[in-house]
């Protein structure tokens, strides 16, 4: 029996271990550190954490950290670095940032005050603009922001607020007080990652998490959701999270949040406007959307009124907002308050609009659009950070800045000064900020790293609520000014240590997305499209691998002799016809061909390419799939990719194929057993059935025609998993008509075409109908006719030509399904091609 390491470790060991961890811990002078207090000793709350960690032993701690890393992988938490094709695993720091409840209260009050202030500023600049008229805010400090969205002027936001979800980036100043470094109001990211960070760490250190009374995050999201519901025009509103799509840097977060909160995850293509309202395109026709939590920037929301090049929005979106029929979090143009130029005015605006001083100070900022401020910055140029006033890249700051005066060479310096003199309104000067440090785990010990803390605020009917936690970014180097995740920083969970234990609340339902999946009509057309294709691709991958397996089996058994060669040759022919591989020169081994058909990346029809397509379709509907399914899909991908790297022998190919088929079988099982029998599942299964029926027709055309040998007919039976039932039914060896009957017409064989056709028909019968006149829609009519015909068919009459006709009619059903459900019937081409008029 293995003893609990915690029980074995004695106090002396713990103290020694902690001493070793922090022996080389050297905070920077002049900036505060989270771990080491002013007395040079670890602060009390950190001491508690370190004691517990040390009690686990060095291996215990490393083991839990490793488990956390695996968990991140398993959860599929990723992010994308701009311009990269592959998503990266989420870089989570192993240690949380610790905040005492007292300190937290101060931060929370300050951020709530700031959110309220910024909402009021927005209300004014998009409304009467009295701040400008009275001279409290220069017109140019507003008009210069690309996020001052002019079509929103004079608009009354549905629900009354411009800002509903806000984040502030904080840093700890030299005096230990918190400062606001920047505001995030366009579409703040990180809240979802914060929850995921929490799930990972809480699982790695469950007891620690409880002992330290770490405040929970779920309540914040519950309040946020309630706030959105209260702000909507209808009592049971349909809420969506609008994403730019899988290529977005934080798509994984969008998926997570949509699932966590039970919101529809929609892209611009899913949205249409009509009669001044916003609708989602669903398989049951357009459904009204009441609330949009957007992660798409204002400029891309509406190609008609904003950026005409946008493919991420919906034409007419601004108009629906203008008419107040849809509630936005946040309104287009809310991003205006992110501009640095505004920061210099906030202390005065706070006194004016709220009658109080800012509780959390800004980084001191001078907007160079004013003469006195410009002179001040030019005089103290060397000791300032110079940045774009509106987050853009003006002359001299083409790299995005900020630039530090003293660090510029003569040429850049002269150029920047001249540019500030000519167009001061494009620049701000800011006080140089030195970030404080928090411990990170490196090579088995602690080391100080600079960090920033993002704190989230949500509007509710009662005012602002603040997430008790946040999104902490930890730099990878001791010297860090600008921290971005892409630049190789890590994120850390943020623990607010409560003074007392807190009752449990969670948002995590066992059955995610409850509202959506119980209302079949809510399935967006694009999601239906991708689920259908995911089903088809998975089925196709399986069929390809079955042929590969058959081929490998026959090759290992085969002796010389033409009757044994026939099934192998036909497998080869089929794989080439499917684009799984190219014809190989005469001398090449069958093994090479089988391997290519399973694993080649070059051929569009190889099992690997098809599996990749399945994953791609799945990634677009990831919020609808369970984590288990997503994991199996990635595993399938990895398995086939790994095998292609080597040149394995026949038995190894066979083993790899078997394993891949097992993974696919597990996926089928998950889909059948763990997927709600609602519209989404219907589309996956419809895709599988259509594809399986088509593939079976092809098997029959290749293996039951042109004088098949008994071995070839036997191969057909193997491909459709029917050898055993055939043998129980027929005593003699395989014969043509019975084999064809089993493959094409047998209603009891779950792999026969007739069986698929019945399933297809019943699925189509279950899907929503657009008209209520009781007439059959075209796709159903095709399916009913095919089903009836197959039921009345005789296997002896089924020659190759007739099988081909059946195959073509199945394809026609697929086309009719696409026309009816995926592109809304108006346009027979699979996707809308949008183009600009002038």
């Amino acid at each position, binding site marked *: 029996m293995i003893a609990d390491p915690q029980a074995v470790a004695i106090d002396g060991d713990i103290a020694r271990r902690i001493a070793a961890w922090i022996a080389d811990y050297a905070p920077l002078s002049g900036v505060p550190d989270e771990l080491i207090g002013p007395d040079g000793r670890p602060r009390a709350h950190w001491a508690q954490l370190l004691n517990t960690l040390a009690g686990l032993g060095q291996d215990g701690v490393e083991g839990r950290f490793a488990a956390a890393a695996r968990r991140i992988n398993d959860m599929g938490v990723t992010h994308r670095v701009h311009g990269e094709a592959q998503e990266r695993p989420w870089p989570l720091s192993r240690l949380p940032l610790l905040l005492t409840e007292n300190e937290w209260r101060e931060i929370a009050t300050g951020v709530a005050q700031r959110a309220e202030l910024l909402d009021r500023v927005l209300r004014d*600049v998009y409304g009467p*603009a009295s701040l*400008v*008229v*009275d*001279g409290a805010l*220069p*017109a*140019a400090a*507003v*008009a*210069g922001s690309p996020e001052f969205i*002019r*079509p929103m*002027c004079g608009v009354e936001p549905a629900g009354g607020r411009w800002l509903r979800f806000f984040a502030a980036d904080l840093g700890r100043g030299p005096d230990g007080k918190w400062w606001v470094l920047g505001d995030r109001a366009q579409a703040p990211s990180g809240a979802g990652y914060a929850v995921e960070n929490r799930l990972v760490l809480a699982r790695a250190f469950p007891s620690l998490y409880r002992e330290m009374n770490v405040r929970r995050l779920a309540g914040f999201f519950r309040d946020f959701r309630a706030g959105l519901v209260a702000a909507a025009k209808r009592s049971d509103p349909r809420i969506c999270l609008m994403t730019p799509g899988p290529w977005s840097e934080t798509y994984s977060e969008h998926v997570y949040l949509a699932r966590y909160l039970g919101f529809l995850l929609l892209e611009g293509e899913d949205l249409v*406007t*009509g*009669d001044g309202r916003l609708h989602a395109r669903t398989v049951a026709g357009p459904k009204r959307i009441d609330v949009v939590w957007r992660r798409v920037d204002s400029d891309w929301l509406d*190609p*008609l*009124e904003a*950026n*005409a090049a946008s493919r991420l929005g919906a*034409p*007419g979106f601004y*108009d629906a907002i203008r008419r107040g029929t849809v509630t936005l979090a946040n309104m287009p143009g809310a991003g205006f308050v992110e501009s640095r130029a505004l920061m210099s005015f906030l202390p005065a605006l706070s006194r004016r609009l709220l009658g109080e001083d800012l509780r959390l100070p800004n980084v001191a900022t001078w907007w160079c*659009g*004013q*003469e006195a401020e410009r002179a001040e910055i030019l005089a103290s140029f060397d000791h300032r950070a110079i940045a774009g006033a509106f987050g*853009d890249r*003006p*002359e001299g700051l083409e790299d995005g800045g900020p630039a530090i005066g003293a660090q510029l060479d003569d040429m850049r310096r002269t150029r920047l000064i001249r540019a500030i003199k*000519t*167009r001061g*309104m*494009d620049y701000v000067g800011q006080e140089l900020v030195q970030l404080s440090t928090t411990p990170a785990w490196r090579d088995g010990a602690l080391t100080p790293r600079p960090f920033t803390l993002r704190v989230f605020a949500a509007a509710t009917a009662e005012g602002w609520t603040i997430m008790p936690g946040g999104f902490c970014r930890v730099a990878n180097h001791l010297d860090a000014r600008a921290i971005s995740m892409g630049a190789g920083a890590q994120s850390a969970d943020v623990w607010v240590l409560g003074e007392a234990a807190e009752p449990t609340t969670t948002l995590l339902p066992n059955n995610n997305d409850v509202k959506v999946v119980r209302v079949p009509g809510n399935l967006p057309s694009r999601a239906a499209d991708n689920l259908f294709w995911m089903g088809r691709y998975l089925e196709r991958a399986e069929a390809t691998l079955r042929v590969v397996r058959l081929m490998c089996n026959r090759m290992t058994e085969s002796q010389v002799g033409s009757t044994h060669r026939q099934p192998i040759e036909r497998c080869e022919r089929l794989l080439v016809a499917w684009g799984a591989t190219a014809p190989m020169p005469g001398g090449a081994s069958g093994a090479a061909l089988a391997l290519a058909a399973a694993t080649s990346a070059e051929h569009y029809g190889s099992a690997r390419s098809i599996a990749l397509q399945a994953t791609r379709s799945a990634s677009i509907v990831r919020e609808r799939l369970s984590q288990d399914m997503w994991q199996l899909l990635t595993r399938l991908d990895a398995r086939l990719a790994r095998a292609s790297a080597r040149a394995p022998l026949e038995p190894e190919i066979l083993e790899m194929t078997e394993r891949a088929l097992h993974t696919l079988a597990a996926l089928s099982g998950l889909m059948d057993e763990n997927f709600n029998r609602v519209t989404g599942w219907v589309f996956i299964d419809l895709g599988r059935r259509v594809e399986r029926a088509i593939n079976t027709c092809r098997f029959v055309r290749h293996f039951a025609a042109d004088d098949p040998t008994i071995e070839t007919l036997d191969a057909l039976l193997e491909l459709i998993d029917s050898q055993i039932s055939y043998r129980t039914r027929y005593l003699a060896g395989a014969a043509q008509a019975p084999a064809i009957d089993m493959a094409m017409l047998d209603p009891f064989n779950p792999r026969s075409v007739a069986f698929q056709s019945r399933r297809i028909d019943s699925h189509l019968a279950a899907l929503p109908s657009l008209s209520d006149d009781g007439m059959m829609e075209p796709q159903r009519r095709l399916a009913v006719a095919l089903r009836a015909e197959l039921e009345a068919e005789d296997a002896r009459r089924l020659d190759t030509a007739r099988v081909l006709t059946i195959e073509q009619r199945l394809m026609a059903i697929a086309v009719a399904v696409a026309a009816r459900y995926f592109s809304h019937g*108006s*346009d027979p*081409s699979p996707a*809308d*091609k*949008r*183009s*600009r*008029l*002038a």
Partner: protein
Amino acid sequence: MIYNIRHVTTYTYETSVASTRCAFRLTPRDGGGQRLLAHEIEATPALHAATERLDFFGNRIIEATIREAHAKLIIAMTARVEVSREEPPAEGLTPLWESVGRDAADVRSLAADSPAHALFASRLAPIEAPVTEYARQSFAPGRPVLEGAAELMRRIRADFVYDPEATDVATPLAEAFARKSGVCQDFAHIMIAGLRGLGLPAAYVSGYIRTFPAPGEIRLDGADASHAWVAVWCGDPFGWIQMDPTNAMYADNNHIVVAVGRDYADVAPIDGVIVGAGRQTLAVAVDIKPVGAPG
């Protein structure tokens, strides 16, 4: 001067278009030296749920949907406008250009005519160092703003070649500037970018200019064209002065203003998103006829 204007735009699609969502900024502005006496927009196929409003800059915008499948779309705008523009002020009497930049920043207004909107880089008129340097040559320290702007306008007219083949709507400003050729839209954007680079407010004006047939020739129907020019803010009390760099002249009673904005993107006469595939071709015919004038 009173004009009858007819502006017909025809889109022809290779394959039928299922639906179109569109916005028109085709109707001449009312006010600022002109009066809109009558106006109408007709489309084939018919517009569905058409609404009319003024956009941020006060331009009349009509938004509509076309629900019928169509292979051709015709939009015809007719209007009657009376133009009576004031003479521009004497250039030498306008304020020094440096003070105009400062005054613009001090205007306490976010209204559509506030110079604050015209001070910054915009989508199609980015600030480019070479363009700013080009403009700077006309703005010696202490020069009256309109004197500098008029010289810049004349230099653009002299240095740039009018060539409709050289650029299209998508040509970036820097490229048109480097080629020293283009059309009215390019010249307007270049002048705007140069002025803004110096911290002076400049806006984009779209509309029509009356053309005169060459001596001995008759006026052809549909031969007129859309035009674009610039408005420069010259401080109080002068405000916005319109200048036409393509013709090196101040806008006069031969200019008819349809829309103003920061650049072409704010005033595009027709914006739309179609649902359909295939190529499209565009034909535009414009007629500007003075009422009572022959032809």
